[in-house]
């Protein structure tokens, strides 16, 4: 036999996800035909679907990350002159995701909003499943946004605001004294469970949420006691067992205790009546998009998403601001685009503003461009290098990391792109997403009414724009680059028109529709116009 597998060895297990095929050849053939895939029959039969090309080296790099816990089959046919010697079929199995990450002390989950519900990834038992959070009723036909902060998801949905809490334990009981945020309560039950108080729903219900810093649990009848921020001794006598965070809790997002009396020592201000835009910046949550004051934005206190009390001479205080010169009414805020904790870009209807530094502690708010606006709340993304891109009112822009440049990328390529697309925020959803695997950006423009779409791929390597179209049921309503622990899920996730979350996958030649069984849809109109060296045009079809 000419070909012998060196790596992975035949029937090997726990193979890394970035495995490269290596073999030896006792005959020194001219070249090798590589067949590789998860379908043993296709590899055995030399099906064109699993033919990966002909190489001259004794190695083949699949160039894509393999899938955890999946068995792969491969076959090398040796080519010597006109003779082709069919090789044997070998197999290996990729390591499981849980075996790959040991000692992990944190979890990442994908979350999504659809069908009036909040959904989260079932990473503990079945990562390929999404679970709906029972009882939390949203209205996804209304403006809705969410942001991650402090191990929670904060949601604004019309006049409603919610918190989905993935970390805190919920306790309820009879309260004695003022339980203040941040204090430690110690239980008198087995193991003396402790919690750091995070949120209180108010005196009407006296439900508290806090992070349990021990492995012990709270049980009905336990007395939790401690000292509040003013040194007063306080306690709660539980009337029910503490509820662990799995499944996550949800509760209305109010200020701590939902206290409305400004003279109350624990008064924490008031939440804005309406918000449609959220962002996290410097330990604060910024809320904007209130149609009655569309130019203004509120930011919660640093490290406290339940405090909106504006205080003087307090650098951590909540902030109310607007993007305008003194005496002016500001421009309407359409989108908020933070870059870590360094700066926050406000995309407005006719201008772009930059908040650099903290709004209550020496930061500055300045216009970056006073003629260009942004075409939608989600019409932006960041690439892997920290550059920000957005669909502006007159082109597609790049704001370089650290604000070193501000460029219209389409001005010299498609100068009328916005006009050509007929962009209208009321009729279309404009989204952008960064695909770290393919090194480019997806710009999606979807008609709300029927899902028809016009899209572009912006290739970060060539700087070119490439029009794309998708079947209407797969048109883009949301995009997110998921930095998952599991490398197979570390992808650009697409929220599709038909209710599925999809991703671009280089191993798929066709689009996968929403049937229960896999159904392929040919990618339509794979075409381009060629200009040959002789100056004539011709139609090309990519293979």
């Amino acid at each position, binding site marked *: 036999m000419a070909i012998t597998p060196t790596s992975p060895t035949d029937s090997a297990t726990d193979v890394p996800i970035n495995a490269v095929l290596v073999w030896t050849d006792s005959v020194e053939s001219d070249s090798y035909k590589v067949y590789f895939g998860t379908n043993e029959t296709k590899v055995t039969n030399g099906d064109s679907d699993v033919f990966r090309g002909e190489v001259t080296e004794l190695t083949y790099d699949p160039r894509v990350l393999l899938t955890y816990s999946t068995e792969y089959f491969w076959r090398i046919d040796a080519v010597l002159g006109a003779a082709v010697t069919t090789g044997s079929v070998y197999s290996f199995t990729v390591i499981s995701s849980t075996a790959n990450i040991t000692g992990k002390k944190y979890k990442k989950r994908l979350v999504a909003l*659809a069908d009036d519900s909040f959904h989260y990834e079932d990473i503990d038992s079945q990562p390929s499943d999404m679970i709906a959070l029972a009882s939390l009723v949203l209205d996804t036909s209304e403006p809705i946004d969410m942001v991650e902060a402090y191990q929670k998801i904060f949601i604004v949905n019309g006049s409603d605001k919610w918190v989905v809490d993935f970390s805190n334990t919920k306790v309820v009981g009879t309260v004695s004294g003022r339980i203040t945020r941040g204090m430690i309560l110690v239980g008198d039950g087995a193991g003396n469970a402790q919690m750091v108080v995070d949120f209180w729903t108010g005196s009407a219900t006296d439900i508290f949420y806090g992070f349990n810093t021990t492995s012990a649990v709270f049980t009905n009848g336990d007395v939790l006691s401690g000292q509040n921020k003013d040194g007063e001794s306080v306690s709660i006598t539980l009337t029910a067992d503490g509820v662990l965070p799995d499944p996550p809790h949800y509760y209305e997002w109010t200020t701590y205790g939902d206290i409305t009396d400004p003279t109350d020592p624990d008064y924490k201000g008031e939440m804005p009546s309406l918000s449609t835009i959220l962002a996290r910046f410097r330990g604060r949550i910024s809320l904007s998009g209130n149609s009655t004051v569309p130019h203004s934005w509120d930011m919660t206190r640093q490290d406290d998403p339940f405090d909106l009390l504006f205080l003087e001479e307090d650098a951590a205080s909540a902030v109310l601001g607007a993007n305008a010169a003194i005496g002016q009414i500001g421009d309407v805020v359409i989108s908020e685009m933070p870059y870590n904790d360094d700066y926050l870009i406000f995309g407005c209807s006719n201008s772009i503003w930059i908040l650099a530094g903290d709004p209550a502690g020496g930061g500055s708010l300045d216009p970056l461009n006073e003629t260009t606006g942004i075409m939608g709340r989600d019409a932006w993304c960041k690439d892997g290098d920290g550059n920000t891109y957005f669909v502006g009112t007159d082109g597609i822009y790049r704001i370089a990391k650290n604000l070193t440049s501000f460029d219209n990328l389409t001005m010299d390529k498609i100068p009328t792109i916005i006009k050509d697309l007929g962009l209208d925020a009321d009729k279309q959803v404009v989204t952008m997403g960064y695909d770290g695997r393919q090194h480019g950006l997806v710009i999606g423009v979807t008609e709300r009414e029927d899902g028809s779409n016009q899209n572009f791929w912006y290739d970060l390597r060539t700087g070119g724009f490439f029009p794309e179209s998708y079947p209407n049921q797969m048109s883009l309503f949301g995009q997110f680059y998921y930095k998952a622990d599991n490398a197979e899920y570390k992808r650009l996730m697409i929220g599709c028109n038909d209710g599925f979350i999809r991703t671009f996958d280089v191993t*798929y030649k066709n689009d996968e529709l929403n049937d229960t069984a896999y159904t392929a849809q040919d990618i339509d109109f794979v075409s381009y116009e060629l200009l040959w060296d002789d100056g004539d045009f011709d139609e090309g079809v990519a293979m």
Partner: protein
Amino acid sequence: MAKFRFPLLGVNKNFAASTRPDYTSSDMNNVRPFDVLEERARGGQRPGMRKVYNQDIGSGTPVVKIAQITTVEL
């Protein structure tokens, strides 16, 4: 014999055909500059879209927002 030049630099509608920059095209659809499997700059179709999760979480209505959350464990 005319040379084939794949439009690696994408669509360009800013110039007349006779002066359009090399490696651009006035019209195209569903092509990308890099062969997605081999990562070679020779042109190819866009990758297909596949389902990541089993559920139709929108029950036929759009998935309007996606995010991620990180939590710590003791």
